[in-house]
Each structure stands twice: as C-alpha cells, then as structure tokens.
C-alpha cells in the first residue's frame, strides 16, 4: 500500500495552529494545537478510502490541506503531483470537494444557477456538462429541486445538490468531509449508493471522512483511523475490528424482567446492562451474531432484538487500551 507513487501522497505532514486565549483584560495566552501531527499515507488512483476518527481528530484539517485551503506547517504533500497550497487554483480543476457542514452552492440562488456557474467557471465542455448534470439529477433525485433556492432545501437535499456540484467538472478525486452528518436514513442511503457507483463506474478516487462507521462498512475497503492528529490504523475494515478488539452489542427484549442472561456455550458474551425486560449483550465484533441469537431464542422468552455496531469512539478507546497493555 505504501509503495510506488500514489495519486495522493503525504509524508510527515503537520499542521500546527497557534491559538490565543484571553486570560484577562488585555492579557492572552498562546497555545499550540497540533491538529495534524506527522501523518503519512498514499492513496492510489481509483481507491475509495474512509478517513475516520472522533471529533477534533484532525480529519477536516487534513482535507483542507489536501485541497490547498491550508498550508501544512511541515512535511510533504502532493495530489496528482501538485503541491496543493502552492498551486491551489490549478489543482481545483482536478478535485471535487464536499463539506458536510457548509455548502459550496450559492445560498440565495436556485440550484440550477449554481450549476450553470460551475459550468462556466470550470470551462466544462457543453456536451460533457449536460451529460454529467443529467446523470447527477437522475441518480441523486434532484429533478424537482433545480429551481428551488438553496436556502430552502433540507439538509439531505442540499447535500445531494452539493455532491452534484462537486462532480460536474469530472474531478479525478472527490473529497467528502462528513457527507452524511445529520442526514436522514433515506438520504444517507441515496448518497452512499451514489458514491459507490461513482467509484465503481467512473473510477473516481474518493476520500471521505466520517464518524459513522456504517458509511465505511458500506463503502470502503480501506480505512484510516486518525486520533489526536496521528494515524492510528491504515488497512481493511475487518482488521480494524481485530486490532481494536471491538465489540458489537446485541439488544434483546424479553417477555418479562429476568436476571442477566448467561450462556454457558458462549463465554465471550457479557451482559453489560439490564433495564426491565431489555438487556444489552456485548460480543466480539469479529464473531457472528447468528449462533448467539439462536441460543438466546432457545433458552429465553425472546420478543425482539437488534444488533448495534461499535461506534468509532469505542473502537479507538479499545485500540488505546490494547496498545497500552502490550
């Protein structure tokens, strides 16, 4: 993975912010925040990579350096052979960017006007533009929204609109910073499906940040975990569960209140919480839930159940714990 020349290359990249905090009248204290603290990785053309980590880990800062918005404080960074902060406008033709938290569309104008402007700004050939727009409108279900001012769109609609805007000039790589944050289930599914097709059919390289592990599970074979500005893990998602020894949670609803479930045949399962007839059982994420469910159904009066994936915070906490134990 770290061999050859990647499409995106980072070597010991750092970003240090100097923040000033007021400590009194006319007095302030300087402090350094190492938002990104020596990160190195390579992404090949056509890869789809998840970049995950808790809030404040340094994900957005990395994306901003990859787009040229921020200049790294140290290290080396190249996208398509270009140093982003030095040749920001040249790089802009080759990348697409979607910020979950803020729109790149013109707030007061209809979606259609934003697209028209992107068309001219990026000098997209007419035929190509029409083709790309039609495709996005169809797959992202934007037909009814084209004449609506952006400020009147719901979060999910706006996000779909933003993704389309980022792709009209055929970028070679698409960065998405928290594209599913705050979206409803239907919008999330639509966005994920679209990204999967984009990567599979057009070979667009995709780098997406999220703190929703489900995004990664459904989209990315490769995942990078970052915390406190450092890369904690770079590899397959399955491997992440092993490294972190993370646990999934089985939530079972029984017919009535019972003492904590205990299964002789499944020693790795722990009952972590009981609330009336509802019980929470933790089991290794690498294992399958099916035999466990079968046993419980056989021995207890089971009414309903659901499986919860480990959240990223839990995975990382485990990762630290196992690193310290070693």
């Amino acid at each position, binding site marked *: 993975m770290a061999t050859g020349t990647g499409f995106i290359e980072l070597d010991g990249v750092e970003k240090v912010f100097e923040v000033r905090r007021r400590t009194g009248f006319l007095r302030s204290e300087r402090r350094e925040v190492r938002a990104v603290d020596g990160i190195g990785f390579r992404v090949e053309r056509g890869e789809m990579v998840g970049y995950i980590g808790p809030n404040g880990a340094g994900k957005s800062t990395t994306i901003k350096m990859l787009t040229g*918005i921020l200049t790294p404080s140290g290290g080396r960074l190249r996208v398509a052979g270009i140093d982003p902060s030095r040749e920001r406008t040249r790089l802009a033709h080759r990348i697409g*960017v979607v910020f979950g938290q803020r*729109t790149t569309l013109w707030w007061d104008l209809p979606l259609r*006007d934003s697209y*028209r*402007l992107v068309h*001219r700004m990026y000098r997209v050939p007419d035929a190509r533009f029409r083709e790309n727009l039609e495709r996005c409108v169809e797959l992202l279900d934007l037909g009814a929204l084209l004449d609506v001012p952006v400020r009147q769109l719901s979060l999910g609609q706006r996000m779909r609109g933003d993704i389309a805007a980022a792709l009209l000039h055929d970028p070679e790589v698409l960065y998405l910073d928290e594209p599913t944050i705050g979206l409803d289930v239907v919008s999330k599914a639509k966005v994920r499906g679209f990204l999967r097709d984009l990567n599979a059919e057009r070979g667009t390289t995709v780098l997406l940040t999220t703190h929703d592990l489900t995004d990664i599970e459904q989209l990315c074979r490769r995942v990078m975990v970052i915390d406190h500005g450092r890369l904690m893990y770079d590899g397959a998602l399955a491997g992440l569960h092993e490294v972190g020894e993370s646990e999934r949670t089985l939530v079972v609803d029984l017919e009535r209140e019972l003492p904590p479930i205990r299964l002789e045949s499944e020693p790795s399962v722990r009952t972590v919480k009981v609330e009336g007839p509802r019980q929470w059982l933790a089991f290794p994420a690498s294992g399958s839930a099916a035999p466990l469910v079968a046993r419980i159904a056989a021995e207890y009066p089971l009414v309903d159940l659901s499986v919860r994936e480990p959240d990223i915070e839990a995975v990382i906490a485990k990762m630290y714990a196992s690193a310290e134990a070693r």
Partner: protein
Amino acid sequence: MAEVTEVSRAVEVPDAVFVERSRLVEGVRAYGLIVAMWLRSTMAYRASFAMTAFGNFAATGFDFVAILLMFAHVDELGGYTLPEIALLYGASGTAFGLADLVLGSMDRLGRRVRDGTLDTLLVRPVPVLAQVAADRFALRRLGRITQGLLVLGYGLAVLDIAWTPLKVVMIPLMLLSGAAIFGAVFVGGAAFQFFAQDAAEVQNSFTYGGNTLLQYPPTVFAKDLVRGVTFVVPLAFVNWLPTLYVLGREYPLGLPEWVAFLPPVVAGVCWGLAGAAWRAGLRSYRSTGN
C-alpha cells in the same frame, strides 16, 4: 554557479509575467460570470429592483439636500459657492459610487473569514478576490452614481469655467482615477479584515466617511486632516485637487499645480499596495475548526 542562476532567472521572468496577466484575465472573467448570474436573478424581480434603486438614489440624495439647506442661510462655505461644492460633491459621489458598485461587497469578507465560509471560495479555480467582490452584486447601487452625476452636471452647467482641453480631459480622468483610488481602499480594507475580522467599520469609515469628507472643500478642515488625506490615505486625489484645477483655485498645503494630474499614478500605487496586502491576508488565512 552564477551563470546557472542567470539562465534560470531569464527563463522565469517572462513566465511569471504571463501568469500574473492570465490571473487578472481569469479574475475579470470570473467576476463577469458571477455578476451576470446575480443580475439575472435580480431582474427576475424588476419591481423590487426599481424600488431599491430608487431608495438608494433618494437615501444618498439626502446628503445633498443637507448642503442645500445650509446654503439657504449662507452664501459661501469655506469660501466656496453652491455650484462649486456641487462639483466637489458630484465628483466624489460618482467616483465612490462606481467603486461601491464594483467592489462594495468586499466589506463582507470579515464575516466569511470568521465563520470559515471563505473555504468554499478557495476550492474553486478562480481568484478569491473576484468571487468576494462579485458576491451579491447589487445593481441598485447605480442609484448613488446617478445622483452623483446629476449633481456634477448641475455644477458644470451653472459654473462659468474657462475651459481648456486639459480641463475637459480632467473630468473623466478624475472620475475614473477617483473610482480606482476608492476601489483600492475597498480592497485594502478587506485585506485588513483577514487580520481583524471586525474591521468592517474601520473600512467603512475610510470609504463612506471619506466620501462624506470629500463633499466639502479642503478649506473647512484642519490642516493636519488635509495633510493626512493627501499623504497618508490619498483621498485628496479623488476630487479635491482635480476639481480645484478645473476651478482654477488655490490648492491646499501650497501644492504645485501639476499634482492635479497625479490621480492615475496615485491609483496605480494604491492598487499595488492593496494587492500586496490582499495576498498577505489570503496567505495568513487559517480557516476555522468546524
């Protein structure tokens, strides 16, 4: 070793010049594209446009009404008659109006820096300055220009000026250079907002405040203020010196006659400084955490 550097410099210079020029062309083109879009959307509401343009015309006209009221009680102000003041007023108002029309949106930069929305402009392949300047282009600002031109026209029609070819050339030269000087102040003020995000008020005091100041003759102000407006923030070159030349009146501070022809040079220098400040500001931009 010395030879090598010579060669590489010879190669670099024309390239750098070319890049500079094409960025300017790119910027103007992008400005035009964004303005065209805002115009289309404003024109969708013609009635509302007419109303706001008239409002702008009327609001800026109150300034002149105040001057008219003053002249109901006095015959001269600082040694100047009403038509002479109309000339000063109209020239400054028109120049400021032009700059305001083209670059008036720059004062929103501080907010974009503070809330981090400047990020979205930085990922597009066109100069940020053009995008900020063209944002929410407001044609209603034509109201101020119209009003300035009317007052200027009144002054020119009533005054008995001994016209020479140079004086005729001076009028458009003054309006365009004056607009450029005000424009540089808009850009420089915006650049300052990269460092002090609440500085929109400071910028406004130089632009709107400067315009109000220039509507009155230099003789009504203290010498130190006139010095500052001539040598520090050179607004005196917008209308004072060129108008005094046309009127054939004495300059403040005992300046020589030829300084009336300096406005294009002053505008060029101001733009050089404003451009450098803008680039420094943009380099210092550090976005926000979410």
